[in-house]
């Protein structure tokens, strides 16, 4: 149990996927203008991350690893993620139109989100077992959510600021991201302190 908590907390705060591992920068910069779209995107990402891990971990462990096909994992995983996202989109559209309306628009954005492929590959690299992998995926998703929501708050404040012409648009957004990222450095000792 303690081990699970360590994985969860370090995935959310210490090794934050966006701010310290640089995965999923595109949605981080693209969908963080409004808090509600940031929330919708990160819920969809968290869901896909957990489901993708639940699918890819058994496929790697029971099909690829025993036959020494582990070099095929990038190809296999991205195919699984792409198919899964497409499937979810179709199912939601058919059976749960209200949910599709609120989450559906985010789904096509997720296939090319490197955080999803990243978390599935990372679970294999770290030799996590099934439960640990799911917890890690959940933590990565929640960390993504935290970063996106915090950052969208920062960005909304920034809209009313008078920014030098050269820094307008992307550059000032990146400076803000740098400062947000510095604030996460403060968490680096948290895990050791909490679970001594």
């Amino acid at each position, binding site marked *: 149990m303690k081990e699970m908590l360590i994985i969860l907390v370090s995935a959310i705060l210490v090794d934050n996927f966006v*701010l*310290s*591992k*640089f*995965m*999923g*920068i*595109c*949605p981080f*910069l*693209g*969908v*963080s*203008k*409004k808090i509600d*779209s940031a929330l919708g995107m990160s819920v969809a990402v968290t869901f896909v991350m957990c489901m993708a891990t639940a699918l890819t971990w058994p496929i790697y462990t029971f099909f690829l690893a025993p036959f020494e096909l582990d*070099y*095929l*994992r*990038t*190809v296999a995983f*991205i*195919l699984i993620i*792409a*198919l899964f996202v*497409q499937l979810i989109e179709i199912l939601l559209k058919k059976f749960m139109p209200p949910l599709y309306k609120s989450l559906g*628009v*985010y*789904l*096509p*954005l997720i*296939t*090319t*989100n*490197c955080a999803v*492929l*990243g978390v599935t*590959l*990372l679970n294999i*690299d770290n030799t996590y077992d099934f439960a640990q992998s799911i917890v890690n995926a959940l933590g990565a998703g929640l960390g993504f959510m935290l970063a996106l929501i915090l950052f969208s708050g920062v960005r909304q404040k920034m809209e009313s600021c008078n920014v030098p*012409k*050269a*820094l*307008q*648009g*992307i*550059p*000032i*957004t*990146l*400076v803000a*991201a*740098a*400062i947000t*990222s*510095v604030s996460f*450095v403060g968490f680096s000792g948290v895990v050791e302190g909490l679970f001594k």
Partner: protein
Amino acid sequence: MSNLKVLLNGIIKENPVFVLLLGMCPTLAVTTMAVNGLGMGLATTFVLVCSNIVISLVKRFIPKAVRLPCFIVIIAGFVTIVGFLLQRFVPSLYSALGLFLSLITVNCIILARAEIFASKNGVGKSALDGVGMGLGFTLALFLMGSVREILGVGTWFGIALTKQLIEPMKLFVSPAGGFFTLAVLIAIINILTKYKISKKKIGCGGCEGCPSAEACASLNEEGDEK
């Protein structure tokens, strides 16, 4: 467009990182050292050229509805090949790039070029476009890596430069330094191109040819209405 124009387009006018703002994740993540930036750039160039060639060859046989999964699988295949080559011949770079080597698969530049260029043009032009875009990406990563290594460690390609003169600023090799260096570089290019970049509307900037552009645009419209 003449062949030379196609080639130069990617390096300068439409530099994937500084102007199109694509492929931000590897740009920020692996550029703590100049040599890593260069290696990542060249690996991506290889994948980009090969996938552009193959996709422009098979474009007629791929049904439109499933083209994105098809493109991604072709790209992933080449990424695996690059992984093998690096592991065998440059193991130090292989371990330095780590996970981000596999993540070349989901680099938006490659998919974007497949979508906007390779699926509409012949083999020769697509290959040239791949070389141009790849070199543009390599140039950007090399610049980022050089700035961060010189300021953050005081060395360049491992050779001590300013190490003895001034205390290296560790911030620049930290994640925050990555964001900051990219911000300053884009701001400089912004001035040089007479503020072309600040006119871009959406955060990630690379909407043209991005597979998710439609969803992204509808999101931002929704936001604007509110």
